[in-house]
């Protein structure tokens, strides 16, 4: 029985009474157990009507998220903001880095300590690897890592896993091909860990110069991973359940010549998908440049736009989890008695 709107706050408090300790911060996928991951995906599933605007559930009313993006972002920043507002919370943004105190030489530590006093939770992206851990060690409130240099991007991983489970009904036992920039690509660093832990086989397809870092390969093998490494995308297509394309990130290369040697090396067109399994899905964290041709969009395999939408629902679930707020069953679309009131 869903309570009337005026009873929401009392009801949310009652649901959360006696819950376990929240996850402190989400910096890498090591901060979540397999059970945590599946619980977040289940919470996200329940929140789908709220993310679509078909139901209103103000679980985060009175809560404030600090969106600290020291590096450009469209999807991640906007989906954090959408997630917060769909659940009745609010957001403050760092804004343009060039007009902040950072240009005056303020340390990351001081910036975080200051914002820490303003908000209940922080989502951040930073060009330096390790910045999210550094922020977490500086702050009292939970930190959600929205990407730290070429390090990790665990919130992207949750939405990727959600998309995979949505398409295949399961994650365990799938063969996932990670393609492109595996060296600098933080999305694949986090995703590979989670996939292996959840029982997937990996095919890593990249140019030799953009192979997955050795410490990550070591970690994956220590987890018992079955890994095939290849430079040929065509070989990976027939056996893949998921092809996860990534952009060769020009901004991560130390020089233009090195980038030009590998730019455009993997391009996936609809015709290339002829030998693929019927249920195989093509994913991409976006933005894409030329690694997926527009004609793939119309195939049954394309999932990257649904994937981007899933960023909202999984981030809703993650914010609730880090703030130790239980996600209840959500009424079916159209049955909510609340007509609005989002802050």
């Amino acid at each position: 029985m869903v309570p009337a709107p005026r009873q929401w706050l009392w009801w949310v408090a009652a649901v959360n009474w006696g819950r376990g300790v929240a996850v402190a911060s989400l910096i890498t996928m090591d901060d979540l157990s397999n059970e945590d991951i599946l619980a977040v995906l289940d919470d996200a599933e329940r929140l789908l009507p709220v993310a679509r605007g078909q139901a209103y559930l103000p679980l985060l009313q009175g809560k404030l998220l600090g969106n600290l993006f020291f590096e450009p972002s469209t999807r991640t920043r906007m989906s954090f903001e959408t997630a917060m507002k769909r659940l009745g919370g609010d957001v403050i943004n760092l804004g343009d880095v060039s007009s902040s105190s950072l240009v005056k030489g303020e340390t990351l530590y001081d910036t975080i300590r200051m914002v820490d006093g303003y908000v209940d939770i922080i989502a951040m992206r930073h060009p330096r690897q390790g910045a999210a851990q550094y922020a977490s060690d500086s702050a009292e409130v939970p930190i959600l890592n929205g990407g730290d240099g070429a390090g990790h991007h665990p919130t992207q991983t949750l939405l990727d896993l959600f998309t995979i489970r949505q398409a295949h009904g399961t994650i365990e036992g799938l063969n996932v091909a990670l393609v492109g920039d595996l060296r600098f690509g933080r999305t694949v660093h986090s995703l590979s860990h989670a996939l292996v832990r959840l029982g997937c086989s990996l095919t890593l397809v990249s140019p030799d110069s953009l192979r997955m870092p050795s410490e990550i390969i070591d970690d994956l093998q220590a987890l018992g991973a079955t890994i095939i490494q290849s430079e040929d995308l065509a070989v990976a297509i027939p056996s893949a359940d998921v092809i996860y394309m990534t952009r060769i990130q020009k901004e991560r290369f130390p020089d233009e010549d090195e980038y030009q040697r590998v730019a455009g090396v993997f391009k996936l067109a609809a015709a290339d998908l002829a030998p693929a399994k019927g249920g195989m899905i093509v994913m991409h964290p976006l933005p894409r440049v030329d690694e997926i041709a527009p004609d793939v969009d119309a195939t049954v395999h394309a999932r990257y736009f649904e994937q981007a939408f899933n960023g909202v629902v999984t981030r809703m679930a993650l914010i609730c989890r880090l703030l130790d707020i239980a996600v209840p069953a959500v009424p079916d679309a159209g049955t909510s008695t609340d007509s609005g009131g989002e802050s």
Partner: protein
Amino acid sequence: MPSEMSMRRVTAINNGTVIDHIPAGCAITVLKMLGVDGGRATPVTLAMNVPSEKMGLKDIVKIEDREISQSDLDKLALVAPEASVSIIRAYSVAEKLQVNLGEDVVNVAACTFANCASHGPREPLPHRLVVHGRDPLQLRCHYCGREQDMDSIVDNLL
């Protein structure tokens, strides 16, 4: 007795520090990390590739008129975690020090990855390296998680 023969290769010192059981070939690195260079007025003795029962081959360093500190021992742990250190006074062993490499190496060396967040100018949190493996020694940065380049870590000592 190979160890006695080894010790006889270099003369006894009056006062100072003897560092034994340094991995073969690492004595010069040890001197560099302790800041011992050609500018010293007192003798420094170095023996490399000395036969050792325990290690096969080892290096030995004797530094006269200097007793190494705890912070020196912390640095030494990164290159010679099995080293035995003796403080010598009046030709006798006055103290034996143990090199103990804990799980966390705090404010001994900075991360060798140039784009690590810990390198930000005036950032106040301590530099932290975490022991990931001991034989061979593998360290990872607490912040960025990158495996440390053990060949260049001497250049990053604090």
